[in-house]
């Protein structure tokens, strides 16, 4: 009925699942999977992998990836820091050549060095323990010339393009296509 559409590639399917394809490309890819069984299977495989990645991320303790500069390390405070992390704000520091004096911690609350990387990482993520001390933490970090991103983030919420399609009628009229 219509011109044949190209088969899916893994890369393109990834882009689709990431939401990175423009709407026309999405529509084309979707339409293709309705008529091509191997591509439908590829889409399912990639979607399943996506779900597995969500599961892995959810099962990865955040503490294990929050790396704090060793100079901010206070060993006595492991348990307290684990609690404190719950309300943490993230900032990103470039460790290259900063000179943090060991006598001053940027925060009042204890900070845990959860993981010490073997070699200096490109970026180090540090956590300000809670809202009460966060401002002081951010100020101290900036005062040291460290690159700080505001933890609140300023990202735009992407435009919603599905709302116009949201109808509450005739949604269950077809049998499953399993």
């Amino acid at each position, binding site marked *: 009925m219509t011109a044949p559409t190209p088969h899916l590639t893994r890369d393109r399917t990834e882009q689709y699942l990431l939401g990175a394809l423009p709407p026309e490309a999405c529509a084309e890819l979707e339409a293709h*999977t309705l008529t091509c069984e191997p591509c439908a299977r590829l889409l399912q495989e990639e979607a399943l992998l*996506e779900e597995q990645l969500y*599961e892995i*991320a959810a099962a990865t303790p955040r503490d294990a990836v929050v790396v704090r500069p060793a100079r901010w390390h206070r060993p006595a405070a492991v348990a307290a820091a684990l609690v404190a992390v719950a309300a943490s704000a993230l900032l*990103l520091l470039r460790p290259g050549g900063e000179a943090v004096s060991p006598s001053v911690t940027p925060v009042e609350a204890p900070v845990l060095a959860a993981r010490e990387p073997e070699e200096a990482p490109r970026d180090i993520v540090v956590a300000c323990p809670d809202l009460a001390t966060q401002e002081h933490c951010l100020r101290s970090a900036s005062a040291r010339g460290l690159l700080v991103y505001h933890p609140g983030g300023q990202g735009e919420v992407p435009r*919603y393009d599905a709302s116009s399609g949201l109808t509450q009628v005739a949604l269950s009229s077809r049998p499953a296509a399993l």
Partner: protein
Amino acid sequence: MTTLQSRQDTGRAARPAAPDEEALSRRALSGERAAWDALIARHQRRVVVSLLARGIRVDRAQELTQETWARLIQQQQRGLLTELRLPALALAQAAFLAADDARRARRESVDGTVEDLPERQQPVDPAQSAEKRLVSEEQLARARDALEQVSPGARNVFLLACDGQGLPHAEVASRVGLSVQRVRQILCEVRKKLRTALEEEQP
């Protein structure tokens, strides 16, 4: 009639949701349609992908996703929603509809009739719809090893984007000071590494 309570993430550090997620949820619970629309936009993709992963055709996956939102809104309008925790609630509702869909298809194939299932009208308790484990312990261990090999920056991007709060890529990008495009590149790179880790020889 049960009321909806979504599962508490106990014993785990708080995951970063988008800064306006809580406010949007509150407004949606009070019936504000614009807030619903914003939340739907944010979590739509995740719900569709969860259905695709079950092998549901993409057109049906989209229909079921719409029905998922329609039902959640309906439940809110009937005062059945006491808490709105997304995307978990939408994923549970979608899984419920998908299972129901499959049941229905089986019945049709058996006796050719479509039974009306009153349970479809009932809200879903996500705590009850036991989450299917997709990753074995061994796979998880290998995935963690693979994540250890990734730079802390990339790992952080992955965890921000995939830890289940539906943080938009634009928001991830803003938090780590990268472009959305770069964030997606990183996600693809991490994905490839984790794919390899998951696919390693099965016992």
